């Protein structure tokens, strides 16, 4: 035991002395939380819109002023030349245009029917849809105001209630994701590289020849990163609660316990990679390509898994961060207890055990 602690102490020195790396390991989650928390949002506002007003009558003016007043839009220009649309699209100045035909109000009042055309730059499909919907809503509001003098029958009024996250903050969605990402990065990447580096420089052999069990040597390399990761989890939670104002609804203890499990999973993965690779470059490649990328893709926090083809959905089940993401979401945002997440926990345990056994097997094969 004493020897093990001696190894762990040495490993801590290695890690703590590399100030630059340490700075980044602690700074990254903070940067990510700040970016996700304050910069990344799909909320639409101040989108530039181009108005082609061929009518210039009271109806078009009313609608245009409604649009100008809306926080979603900023009127870029009001012209009569439809060619402006293509030009401005190409320059990326506007994303949507609204065209009023001549005689708009006259047609509306006398023919009881008038047309409006919305042209959206659909190179960003979601934005186009959202902008189109917002403009339609403004126009329909105008229409219902017009119609207040008439008594419209059969009004179905949808009442929308947002659960768990009434302000539609992005944070509840991504904080669990950031946790998964950061833990993966530190535990898999750093562990793998740190072990492989010793292999590359040859010092690993020295350690292996020592009378200590090789397993101890390797595990001692993982321990500093375990501690670092727990500190990062705490940092992220603190940031989330106090800066992003997203509280932890469930048990913090459970959260830490599950996080420790996930950390162990990632460390095991990192160790496995280090056994299988020989140079830092390859270890990095494998970690980034093989681990980080799938984590970002398949954990479900950036892209919804249910949108993916079935094959990929099935594949996502072997990605540990997918389960961790669900667990953290459930505890933090929904506030549920262990009874709701035992299945996901089991999945993580299974993955960890699997990694553990193949690591030991690979290691023994190398030694033999």
């Amino acid at each position: 035991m004493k020897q093990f602690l001696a190894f762990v102490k040495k490993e801590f020195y290695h890690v703590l002395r590399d100030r630059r790396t340490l700075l980044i390991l602690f700074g990254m989650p903070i940067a990510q939380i700040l970016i996700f928390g304050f910069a990344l949002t799909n909320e639409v506002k101040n989108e530039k819109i181009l108005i082609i007003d061929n009518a210039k009558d009271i109806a078009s003016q009313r609608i245009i002023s409604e649009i100008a007043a809306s926080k979603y839009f900023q009127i870029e220009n009001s012209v009569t030349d439809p060619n402006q649309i293509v030009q401005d699209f190409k320059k990326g100045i506007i994303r949507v245009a609204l065209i009023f035909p001549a005689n708009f109000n006259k047609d509306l009042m006398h023919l009881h029917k008038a047309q409006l055309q919305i042209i959206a730059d659909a190179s960003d499909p979601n934005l186009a849809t959202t902008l189109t919907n917002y403009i339609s809503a403004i126009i329909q509001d105008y229409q219902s105001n017009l119609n207040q003098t008439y008594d419209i029958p059969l009004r179905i009024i949808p009442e929308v209630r947002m659960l768990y996250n009434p302000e539609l903050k992005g944070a509840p969605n991504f904080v669990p994701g950031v946790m998964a990402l950061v833990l993966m990065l530190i535990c898999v990447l750093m562990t793998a590289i740190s072990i492989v580096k010793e292999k590359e420089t040859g010092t690993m052999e020295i350690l292996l020849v020592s009378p200590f069990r090789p397993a101890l040597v390797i595990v001692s390399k993982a321990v500093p990163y375990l501690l670092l990761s727990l500190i990062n989890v705490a940092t992220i939670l603190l940031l989330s609660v106090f800066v992003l104002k997203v509280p932890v609804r469930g048990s913090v203890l459970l959260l830490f316990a599950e996080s420790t499990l996930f950390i162990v999973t990632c460390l095991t993965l990192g160790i496995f990679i280090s056994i299988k690779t020989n140079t830092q470059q390859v270890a990095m490649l494998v970690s980034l390509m093989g681990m980080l990328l799938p984590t970002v893709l398949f954990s479900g926090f950036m892209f919804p898994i249910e949108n993916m083809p079935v094959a990929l959905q099935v594949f996502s089940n072997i990605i540990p961060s997918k389960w961790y993401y669900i667990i953290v979401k459930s505890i933090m945002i929904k506030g549920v207890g262990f009874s709701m997440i035992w299945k996901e926990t089991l999945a993580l345990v299974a993955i960890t055990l699997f990694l553990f056994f193949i690591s030991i097997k690979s290691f023994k094969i190398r030694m033999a």
Partner: protein
Amino acid sequence: MRTIKFLLRKEFKQIFRNKSILAMIIIMPIMQLLILPLAANYEVKNINLSVVDHDHSSYSQKLISKITASGYFKLQAYNSSFEDAFHLIETDKADLILEIPQGFERNLIRKNEQKVLIAVNAINGTKANLGGSYLSKIIRNYNDEIRLQWQRLSSYNPVPLIEITSSNWFNSFLNYDIFMVPGILAILVTMVGGFLTALNIVKEKEAGTIEQINVTPIKKQYFILGKLIPFWILGNIVFTIGLLIEWLVYGIIPLGSLLVLYGFIWLYLLAILGFGLLVSTYSNTQQQAMLIMFFFMMIFILMGGLFTPINSMPEWAKIISRFNPVSYMIEVMRMVILKGSGWKDIFPQLWKILLFAVVLNSWAILNYRKTT
């Protein structure tokens, strides 16, 4: 000048002998371009819906069938109470609940007004927003439908109706791939160029061969050029492979001129490679270089406008974006490939990237000291 020839020969030999780099240049773009768009899909569809219908009238049933027919929603369950439906949301089996009150049809006709409740799991804000608005839209359409029927039955003053037609340009099928793929390619080229350059120099530092170079009379400008050029060429190769995949697999043919595209890429690569170079002058180990690169790449990519629009960011983030070369690349890729923008259109981005290239490379050259 001859020195550069020798430097380049050495670099290329080393690159081609290094299997992992080759794998990175060739396999990574292919894999990423194939898998990422499949996964990176923000299209909202297959929203799991649970319906709580207390009315069971013809109106409520028609509304429900209209909703399921839309294709956006998957009807998961008919629950008899809101609590039951809520349990489905808790276990992530449903995303949305539609509750139709008892007496819906009767009260709608008698009182002219009825509320329906839509409860949305809003943890994923985008999904909730789009899901809620799709549902509201369908309900509105249904509302117009039954109102129209009603109008035909009674002698009724017609109400002024504004008919809205909307068209989507450049991507009429609202194909999400078309939006994502050029952006993903931009990121790919950035990552390959940046990482490889940074790691390469640091590797020489670690191996000690850089000291050997520092003792020779090689001018440091030549040395750095000797490092830049091979990776610049590699970056071009990755980009071209990417364009080919875009065409063969996704059917995306650049609307704009290839010359414009490549012109921009050439400048952009210089900037990104310069950045990698700069990072390498500040790192002593491969681990450090990789971590620093990763840190900046992550910020660049997240704030580059690939996943969320830059326009929606707060002022301080927008300012940071202006210093983010990746955001210009993503913008230009989309503009030229999807909208056919030309030299004049991308001029603002072009000269900014030129500035980046000059500043970053100069900084790197100044920082690289043969003598410490």
